[in-house]
């Protein structure tokens, strides 16, 4: 298993060596972020930077707080009763964790694709167009819808039935529609919370392919429990793991964050090595 990953990593990274980190533009600067549910920490002390036009993968075992972490980045956890966070998340230099920040405005720039495809019970066209209409992007709507669907590699499959219900699409198509819907409103960052975990391998590879194509325009942060997927799509990889607190309660922690190739071939932490070589998790 580890050899396949290493091969995949080598194949992927041979194409595009990463420039030194100092030269990359920083989208997120996250500093000692704690995320708590009802006062109990789910994630503790995360510090990392997310760079522009790269795909950043968050990997780790179940329950390590990957999803909790990524949902902090667009204030999606605000909807969970009892949730709170401390620390700072600077987005283009602005802290977005404060109470004086409008989560709606944050989400306007930081889009999200969820684990299970969740198209609106509307037509395929309206799924993509509705968000734009509500957000005031009303000029040349048809062109924008076509562009978004083309970018999401779905246009050819649906162009003849734009008015049919989105629920008639297959799971993989629905997820690509959700990606089209997210990028149609022209976000800066797209967060993906295990976007392929409910999909078959063909649909999965379609989504990985389009992330690769789209990262010239967007910045992606993707949570995945599939290490091969991280190896295939990500430029940077963060490995989260579960730690035990003093009273025995479990919380997630960032163990290592580095270029994907480094994480999978020469991790500097023992726990990362155990995880990526399949000895644990």
């Amino acid at each position, binding site marked *: 298993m580890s050899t396949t990953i290493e091969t995949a990593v080598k194949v992927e990274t041979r194409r595009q060596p990463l420039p030194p980190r100092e030269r990359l533009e920083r989208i997120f600067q996250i500093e000692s972020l704690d995320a708590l549910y009802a006062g109990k920490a789910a994630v503790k002390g995360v510090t990392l930077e997310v760079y522009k036009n790269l795909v950043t993968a968050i990997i780790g075992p179940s329950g390590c707080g990957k999803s909790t972490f990524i949902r902090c980045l667009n204030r999606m956890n605000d909807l969970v009763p009892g949730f709170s966070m401390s620390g700072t998340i600077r987005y283009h230099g602005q802290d977005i964790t404060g109470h004086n920040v409008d989560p709606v405005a*944050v989400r306007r720039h930081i889009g999200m694709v969820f684990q299970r495809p969740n198209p609106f019970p509307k037509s395929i066209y309206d799924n993509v167009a509705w968000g734009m209409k509500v*957000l005031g992007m009303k000029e040349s709507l048809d062109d924008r819808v076509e562009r978004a669907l083309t970018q999401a590699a779905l246009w050819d499959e649906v162009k003849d039935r734009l008015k049919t219900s989105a629920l008639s699409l297959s799971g993989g198509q629905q997820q690509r529609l959700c990606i089209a819907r997210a990028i149609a409103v022209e976000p800066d960052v797209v967060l993906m919370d295990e976007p392929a975990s409910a999909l078959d391998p063909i649909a999965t590879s379609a989504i990985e392919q389009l992330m690769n194509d789209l990262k010239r325009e967007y910045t992606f942060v993707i949570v995945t429990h599939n290490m091969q997927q991280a190896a295939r799509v990500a430029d940077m990889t963060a490995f989260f793991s579960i730690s035990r607190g003093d009273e025995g309660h479990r919380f997630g922690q960032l163990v290592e964050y580095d270029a994907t190739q480094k994480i999978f071939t020469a991790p500097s932490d023992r726990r990362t090595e155990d995880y990526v070589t399949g000895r644990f998790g």
Partner: protein
Amino acid sequence: MPVPGAGMSAHGITRADLQAVNLPRRRVVNRVMQLLCTLAALIAVGLLVIIVYSVAKRGFAALNLDLLTKDPANSFSFGAPVKEGLANAFVGSLVLVGLATAMTLPVGILIAIYLIEFAPPTIRSGVSVVLDVLNGVPAIVIGIFVYGLIVIGSGQSGWAGAFALACLMLPILTRSTMEVLRLVPGSLREASLGLGIPRWRTTLSIVLPQALGGIVTGTVLAIARVAGETAPLLFTSSLVGTKTSWNPFHALQSVPVAIFELSEQPDPASHARAWAAALVLLLFILFTSLTARYFASRSRRKLTAGR
């Protein structure tokens, strides 16, 4: 301790282990219990059939177009037989229930939206309990409450009657709306919010359209429920003349109150008309309930489609 040998599997299970114990007796008990359960279900069905049948049998004779379109001749002067129709009661019920629905619908839907979409869990459960208690308040108590609140000061009126009915409708409508809002998948809300769309817009454009069928169902059921209420109207809208009136500033006759009053009369013709009015009321409630069921199943299909 089983001894390994012929007729035994690798797991040490003999044929005797698989043989049912006391099978004939268990079959009998099973039959009897099934029969009892079926009987209980038949009693419920039978009750409705008997009610509908007896009302239909007695009411059908007096059921004619005059009943629906003509006013009573000269109603409650003592001893005088009441003739002709009950149009004033049907019109009055229409106005009372219509006004009650108009009062309840916006309030009930707003309460439900607040509790499901915005309120913290503690407030949600607290208000839910209050609604359940309100739902359990006897109709006659609601009638006395509205009597004390409105009628003592400004006399009986259609408004007072409609308000009493609205008090009965509110918890039913709110609870059923809450249930359908809860059925709308959270993933749809997240999808909309994730696009950077405000919560009010998400509620209005994504959640409410999904719940519309269910809200209609709840409303129709609440209407069917209060259309047959007598007690809240006795104190609030019952001292009426014989003329049909659409004006809610005066007391309005209603079908249940008319049935009650006619059944108190000594005259068999009045009784016949009471039965006929009861039949009309029953048919209305059966019809609205069936309509509600139709909408309910349709909206449930829509909510569960594709997942």
